[in-house]
Structures are given as structure tokens and as C-alpha cells.
């Protein structure tokens, strides 16, 4: 039997609908069909600005005004933007109306038609005032405030947060409640990731601000581009081409490099979600460095200055250094943190007052382990002949002399100048 369905696709076929069985079989029940359901229509302000709002309802109408729903709090918008001041919006205007069409009362009736008629019969008495039509008029001195002090007060949190600010660094806000986050000791947590943007906002006027943000984004992008390029190069050239597949055509390695780029960007997106659980990006970066850079530092130092170091020693040392970092990180926890990406996954043996303290001890454990293991394994394995180490180990490499160059072409004097400037500026702005 030949099926024609595939040839023509879905066109002309009878398709069985599977969604919403209750609606398809006529068994749906709607709120409007409930006997207790009522219709609501709003009475709206006919003027753009006014005060002393009085609502006169027709005989027998069921009317809800702002005075009767004081238990309902005004709607407060939530928008996470710099310098954004949320203005509470009342559900029904009371005393003051601020735009044409602002609801001042709700009429409740049994049918839509009756509710609409009653709403139209309702008279609203408003003492009209001069509306603010432009932002320039609103910003002029002596202009009436659109949001009254009472509306602004309803926005303020019931228990005001004690201010703890260091310079212009803002507090970190809970993304769900919009309230400042607090650490284990009840202090407000500051959002150091916003230090640079806030500095730009604070000191730069419009004009230079755009240039500053552009420069900031450009540096992010160039840093990202550099890291992605480094990632796919190291993977494709140093690992894939050297150890996994040799002698393939260039197009093969090019494709592998492109895949590595996509993969690397995907990893960094995942890492961003992990980083979001840290207070700032520096804390997370230090943790990564404790795992990767701390043992690598011991390997580099030994490799550069100790001719007796061997490849086996370096590899064993590096791996055991990373393992030591994992063991230390897995057995400790910063105060107030939960077991997970912040440590403690091997059982919490000790706690540290902060994440940075834990990270530094992790780095120390990793460095010391790598240093000791590299030395021990190097001494147990066969040394490399000295002639192979020329240009690699400091003691076996001829030193370049730069006596012939002028002082500003030599790194030494320049380093002294930079260091002096750094110390002096830090002392001035301490």
C-alpha cells in the first residue's frame, strides 16, 4: 500500500487535533459563565491634570473608588537600570489625576452593557489644574511634581537599608525582590562588577560617556577575541595536530579550529552562569587561577631556573597541583556559602571568612604541591642533557645586553619609573 500522505505533506489531509480536549469537546468552563461573575468597567479621568476628585455614582450602582481599596498597594514597576527611581502607580486615582484616561473608579454590574451604561452615567468632578506637557516644563523650577511625595513614599522599603557604600559602588540587588543582598553578618553586599560602569556614569557627561562605554565594550570584545583565538590555536595546533591527528590537510585543521571556536564560546556562556553565583567576576577569576595558574606558576618557575627539572616531573607536578587544589577546595567552604561550586563537595572540614581567603589557600595548596612533586619526580627521572636546554633555562641562556641603548629604550629604568608612579599615585589617592 502506498501512502500518499508523505508526498503532499499535510495539505489536504485531515489532521487530528490533540490540544485542549476540554475545549474541543465543548466541555470548557469559563469564568464569565459562572453565576457569581460580574462585569467591571472603569470610570476614567477626562482631564490631564486635576485634584479634589469626587465621584458621583448613579442610584443603585455598585462603585469601587480608591478610598475603598486602600488595602491594595499601588503597583510598583521593577526595572533594573542605573539611576532608575520606580514611581508607584495607584490602581485607582485618589484625590489627584495625572493623565487623561486614568481610572478613578470601577463600576461592577451583572452584564457588560449595564456596567458600561453605569460607567457612562457616573459623573466625575475634578478641579482642573495645569497639565505638564513637555519634559522641559516638568524640569523647570517650581513645576508641580507629577508623582506626589506620598506615591514616592510607598515605594520606599518598609525597613530602610542602612547605607553602606564604598565610594560609588552600589549595593548588589536580589534579582527576585529588588532588595539589597546581605552577607552572613547582615551587611549589605556591594556589587563591585558595577564599579567601572558607575564611575563612568558618575564622572562622565553625555558625550564622553558614549566614548567611555564604547572603549569599555571594545576592550571586552578584544579581550574575548584574544582569548577565543588563543583557545582554538592552542587546541588545534598544540594538542590536536601534535597528539591526536597528524599530517591532515590544512582544511581539516581549519575546520577543527572553527569548531573549537564555537565550542569555546559555548563553554564561556556556561561559565557565565557559574560566575553569576559569585559576588563579582574577580572572585570567580581568582578561583580559576587557583586551579590553573597557581600550579602552572610553580612549573614555569622550576622549568626556567632549575636545569634538573624534567618533563615527567613537570607533568606529574602540574596534575597533582590541580588535584590538590580540587581536594582543598572540596574540603573547605567560605562563611555563609552553600556546598556546590563554592566548595565543600568532599565534605566541609574547614570554613574561611571569605571566598578570597579560601581561594588564596587553595592556590597555596596547589602551588606547594606542584613545586614539591615536580622536584621529587624530577630527581627520580633521567635529566635532560644541558645542550638541549639552551634558550629554555635561564642559567643556560646568554643574556642580552642593552647597554648600547638609550635609557628610555631599556626596560629597567622604565620599570622603575612605572613602579614609582604607581606607588606615588596610590599614596596620593589612598
Amino acid at each position: 500500500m502506498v501512502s500518499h500522505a508523505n508526498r503532499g505533506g499535510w495539505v489536504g489531509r485531515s489532521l487530528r487535533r490533540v490540544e485542549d480536549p476540554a475545549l474541543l469537546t465543548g466541555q470548557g468552563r469559563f469564568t464569565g459563565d459562572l453565576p457569581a461573575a460580574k462585569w467591571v468597567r472603569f470610570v476614567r479621568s477626562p482631564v490631564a491634570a486635576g485634584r479634589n476628585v469626587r465621584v458621583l455614582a448613579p442610584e443603585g450602582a455598585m462603585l469601587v473608588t480608591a478610598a475603598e481599596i486602600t488595602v491594595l498597594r499601588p503597583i510598583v514597576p521593577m526595572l533594573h537600570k542605573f539611576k532608575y527611581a520606580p514611581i508607584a502607580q495607584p490602581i485607582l486615582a485618589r484625590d489627584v489625576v495625572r493623565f487623561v484616561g486614568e481610572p478613578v473608579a470601577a463600576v461592577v454590574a451583572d452584564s457588560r452593557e449595564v456596567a458600561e451604561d453605569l460607567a457612562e452615567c457616573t459623573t466625575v468632578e475634578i478641579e482642573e489644574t495645569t497639565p505638564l506637557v513637555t519634559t522641559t516644563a516638568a524640569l523647570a523650577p517650581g513645576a508641580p511634581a507629577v508623582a506626589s511625595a506620598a506615591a514616592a513614599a510607598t515605594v520606599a522599603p518598609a525597613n530602610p537599608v542602612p547605607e553602606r557604600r564604598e565610594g560609588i559602588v552600589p549595593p548588589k540587588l536580589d534579582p527576585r525582590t529588588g532588595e539589597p543582598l546581605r552577607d552572613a553578618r547582615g551587611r549589605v553586599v556591594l556589587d563591585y562588577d558595577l564599579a567601572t560602569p558607575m564611575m563612568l556614569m558618575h564622572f562622565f557627561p553625555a558625550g564622553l560617556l558614549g566614548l567611555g562605554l564604547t572603549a569599555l565594550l571594545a576592550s571586552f570584545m578584544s579581550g574575548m577575541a584574544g582569548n577565543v583565538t588563543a583557545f582554538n590555536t592552542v587546541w588545534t595546533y598544540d594538542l590536536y595536530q601534535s597528539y591526536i591527528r597528524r599530517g591532515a590537510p590544512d582544511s581539516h585543521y581549519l575546520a577543527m579550529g572553527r569548531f573549537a571556536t564555537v565550542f569555546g564560546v559555548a563553554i564561556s556562556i556556561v561559565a557565565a552562569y557559574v560566575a553569576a553565583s559569585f559576588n563579582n567576576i574577580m572572585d570567580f577569576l581568582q578561583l580559576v587561577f587557583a586551579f590553573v595558574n597557581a600550579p602552572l606558576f610553580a612549573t614555569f618557575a622550576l622549568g626556567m631556573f632549575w636545569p634538573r627539572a624534567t618533563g615527567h616531573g613537570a607533568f606529574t607536578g602540574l596534575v597533582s597541583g590541580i588535584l590538590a587544589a580540587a581536594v582543598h577546595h572540596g574540603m573547605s567552604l567560605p562563611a555563609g556559602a552553600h556546598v556546590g561550586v563554592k566548595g565543600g563537595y568532599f565534605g566541609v572540614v574547614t570554613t574561611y571568612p571569605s571566598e578570597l581567603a579560601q581561594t588564596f589557600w587553595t592556590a597555596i595548596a596547589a602551588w606547594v604541591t606542584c613545586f614539591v612533586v615536580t622536584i621529587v619526580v624530577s630527581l627520580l627521572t633521567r635529566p635532560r642533557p644541558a645542550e638541549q636546554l639552551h634558550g629554555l633555562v635561564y642559567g643556560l641562556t646568554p643574556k642580552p645586553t642593552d647597554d648600547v641603548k638609550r635609557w628610555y629604550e631599556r626596560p629597567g629604568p622604565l620599570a622603575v619609573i612605572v613602579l614609582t608612579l604607581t606607588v606615588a599615585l596610590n599614596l596620593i589617592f589612598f
Partner: protein
Amino acid sequence: MGIDLRMPLGALFGVLGLLLTLYGAATRGQPGTEPTGVPVNLIWGVVLLAFGLWMLLLARRARRASKM
């Protein structure tokens, strides 16, 4: 021969500097444009413009020298 990097560099800084200088001069003294009390738009505009022009000048000189 590759492109002389000083040309696009000078053009970029020159255009940005010109924009910022004009904007800074036009909004001089208006509220909100000088949060630190310094006409920073104008000053930085002039600095960027000068740097851009200097780069363009160097590029022009090098091109003339290579032609001769």
C-alpha cells in the same frame, strides 16, 4: 605594501575628537554636562582631535618620504 595604520587611526581619533569638541562647545555650561566642574567633553575632544591630526601628519610625512 600594507596599509599605514596611522591613517585609519588618525581618521578615527580625528572624527571622534571633532564630534566631541563640537558637542562640548555647543553644550558648554549647560547643567549636567560638567559633573566634575570641568568642561571634560571639550578638553577630551581637543586632545583626541590633536592626537588624530598628529597621526595623520606622521602618515603623510612617511608617504611623502617613501615617494621621493
